């Protein structure tokens, strides 16, 4: 009987029931895959207000699986989820860099998210799932990059390219009953900004400091905050903003 309950609890219907009743909810998608998968975070990029964004990533397929002739694709989206650029990068090293500037985006001074996918044409066992959490550096006014790593698993695709990209790794709640209390004291800063992105295909409703926000599929928003204790309420099980804290001419960027 116990094993039957355990089996049901991990089926699609079981997870649905766990999440609406809030009994042992499942925050992230679990895979039972027959194809090799490359998962990407929704990585935040900024070119607004003197920012540029540096992205550092490893060739995971070469490092762990010794597969040669791999490549990555970087898909850059606007804050309104419009595809701005697709970059295919061959000749990977163990560790690689990619920089998004205003000039690279042909004059766009704004923000959004991008995704990275690893590919190979070599036959690759279906059980394998890789995830590049990577590292992002933000430089303001050409000062030193402040580095942070990826924040939320967002989209995935087949490592043997099929031109199909899926999302909804992060689960949603029926109600706006999920709270996320950021474990940082926002005191003694000139300014704090929170960068939210929607890693799902659904609409996220969230509130912060008694204001309500709507974030549609793949969209992102930067919100300036003045509270010392920050609590985010939402209908998403894993809505974690990236934090930008400012003091004098210095910035500190970290995930929350």
């Amino acid at each position, binding site marked *: 009987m116990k094993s039957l309950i355990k089996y049901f609890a991990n089926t699609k219907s079981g997870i649905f029931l766990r999440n609406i009743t809030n009994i042992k909810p499942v925050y992230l998608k679990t895979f039972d895959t027959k194809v090799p998968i490359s998962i990407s975070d929704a990585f935040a990029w900024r070119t607004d207000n003197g920012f540029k964004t540096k992205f550092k990533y490893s060739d995971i397929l070469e490092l*762990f699986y010794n597969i040669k002739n791999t490549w990555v694709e970087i898909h850059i989206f606007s804050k309104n989820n419009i595809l701005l650029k697709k970059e295919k990068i061959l000749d990977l090293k163990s560790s690689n860099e990619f920089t998004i500037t205003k000039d690279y985006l042909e004059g766009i001074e704004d923000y959004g998210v991008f995704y990275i996918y690893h590919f190979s044409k070599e036959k690759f066992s279906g059980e394998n799932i890789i995830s590049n959490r990577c590292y992002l550096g933000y430089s303001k006014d050409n000062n030193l990059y402040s580095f942070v790593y990826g924040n939320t698993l967002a989209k995935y695709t087949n490592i043997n390219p099929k031109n199909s990209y899926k999302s909804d790794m992060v689960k949603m709640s029926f109600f706006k009953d999920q*709270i996320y209390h950021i*474990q940082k004291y926002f005191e003694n800063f000139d300014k704090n900004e929170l960068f939210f992105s929607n890693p799902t295909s659904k609409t996220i409703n969230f509130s912060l400091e008694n204001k309500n926000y709507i974030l549609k599929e793949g969209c992102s928003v930067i919100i300036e905050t003045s509270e010392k204790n920050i609590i985010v309420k939402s209908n998403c099980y894993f809505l974690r903003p990236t934090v930008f804290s400012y003091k004098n001419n210095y910035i500190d960027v970290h995930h929350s």
Partner: protein
Amino acid sequence: MNYFFGINNEIFKSRVEIPIFKNRSIPDKQIKLYEIYIDEKKWKYTNIEKKNSESNFFIIDEKNSSNDKIYFLSKDKSINKFNNDQLENLNDFTDTVPAFRSNLKILIINGGFSSYQSEYPFQMIKSKGSIVSSVASLTNSSADKNYLIFKNIFHFPINEKFNGFFVDIKNKKIMEKFELITNYTNQIEINKKLLNENIFFVSQDYLGIPMYVSTKDNHISFEHTHPLHEYILSKNRYEKVKQLKEQVNEIIN
């Protein structure tokens, strides 16, 4: 159960903000913060008072930052189980999803600051092993200086020396060997010649958290690298990481 830690040396001081709330719930006013340290080969603890009763954080400021003290949260009941001979998993207050974290900020006096959400999980404290971490991922060749900060917490109250290495994994060569200490926040300056994609930091015998700091014109960047098994989410993740570690260990042995 998570432990928390700080950094204190000639260049950097730390400020650690440890919340009294889980990230999905309200503050627990009954929770207390304990500082622990090694004294005559025994673990000792003291209770740290919260200075600002309005705040939901215990704050270990830069004047009290330390390389050898560590911190944990506990209620009165579980502190009675404290063992002077080895660190124990005393309570589950910090066992949360996402992980329960402090904000660990490092500062240059009259200069910049940088932080990340930091914790040292109990399961790393009981185990021995080696850490492999890419140096290129978080260092910056344009910076004035780059440093590795390596924090080890081990359950026995010992300050034992062990080896750390910068290795070139492509050419299978040790580039630098240096000494690290258990139950301590170690700091190593990284030579600019080592800032390339083939260089990895490797610890021998002991686990820990590898963090990297870059500085330029008083600006700082500070972040830790992911454990290798976070790159692979399939069931074979530990097997794949083990294979890579075996290759690296062949270089240092």
